[in-house]
């Protein structure tokens, strides 16, 4: 067993610890009551920490905890709202964009289909050779016709008939004359 007189007793250590703790508390209180500089910007207004009353301190600590909780709550719900809003907005944007683009695509598809039928017909009547037929098939392909260079920044076309590829082949067949056999 240890002897208190030897100076290495644990009860002395406890006293020392108690003193240190109370000193630490006091200095903390001093800091809180005196320090109204940069910290006050973070934790609230000067008046909140204007006196050294312990109940005010506890109140302000509780207030801080509350503010932190509200901030965390706000952040959590804002994040969730943002993600849900983004998903919902994407769905709406995709659908309304699809609805806007669909009629133009139908018109372009219709015009390309007409040129395709004329190509098949003229080739079957030997009015065009295989090279011309293959060239038409290559140029009328969807990836060529829907190339972004033919559309404005809003993906619109003033008149689908003025699409350069459609225009080129329409004029080409006009020059060849009627596809009917005499």
């Amino acid at each position, binding site marked *: 067993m240890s002897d208190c007189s030897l100076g290495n007793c644990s009860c002395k250590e406890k006293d020392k610890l108690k003193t240190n703790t109370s000193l630490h508390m006091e200095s903390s209180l001093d800091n809180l009551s005196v320090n109204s500089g940069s910290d006050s910007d973070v934790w609230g207004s000067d008046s909140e920490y204007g006196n050294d009353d312990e109940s005010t301190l506890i109140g302000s600590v509780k207030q801080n905890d509350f503010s932190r909780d509200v901030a965390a709550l*706000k952040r959590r719900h804002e994040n969730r709202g943002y993600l849900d809003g983004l998903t919902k907005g994407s769905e709406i944007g995709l659908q309304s964009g699809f609805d806007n683009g669909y009629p133009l*695509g139908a018109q372009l598809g219709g015009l390309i289909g007409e040129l395709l039928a*004329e190509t098949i017909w003229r080739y079957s009547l030997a009015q065009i050779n295989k090279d011309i037929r293959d060239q038409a098939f290559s140029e009328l392909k969807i990836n060529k016709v829907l190339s972004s260079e033919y559309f404005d920044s809003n993906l619109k076309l003033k008149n689908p008939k003025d699409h350069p590829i459609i225009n080129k082949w329409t004029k080409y067949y006009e020059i060849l004359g009627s596809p009917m056999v005499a």
Partner: protein
Amino acid sequence: MSNTNTYTNIDFDSLLNLEDQFYQNSFNNAINEGKNHSNRDGIQFGIQTGFQRFILIGALNKMNHLLIDLINSKLLINHQNQNQDQDQDQKGIEISKKVNLEKMIKNLTEIQKNINYFYNYDNNSTNLIQTSNTPNDVQFYEKQIKIIRSKIKSAYLQLGYKNLYSEIENSCREIAGDIPASQINGAQEDIW
């Protein structure tokens, strides 16, 4: 009394719905951001799908016009032949040909009426397909394409163009590619 009044003036609902407020404000702001972000993708996808769906209508429309013109020119020749001095047998053949040609013209004209629904010719002078992605228009498309396809197959057979329809259909596929399966309501072969 005054305290009671003060309490009744506080909107407790809004305090209790703090979570909803935070959520809703952020949700409303993000919706516009999401809309703007995906709108362009939607337009591109819409143009592509419209193109893939209506290329066949355009091709059948043109082919129908070509065949009507062809039969009309044959009818003209037939009429000229009938006016020439011919024996009775030859005249009988020409009359029989005329009946057949007129029947074919009637069939193709019927098909043309079905095709014209997509062009809305009555008040459309642009000769461009008039459609939209509304459920009614999509349903109408799916119904009409089946009718047109079955009528055209038998008309082409009558005219002696046994493989013409499949050639048009395959060419449309070659030009426009296949519609992704997820975009099709029903069996894929219904579209074509």
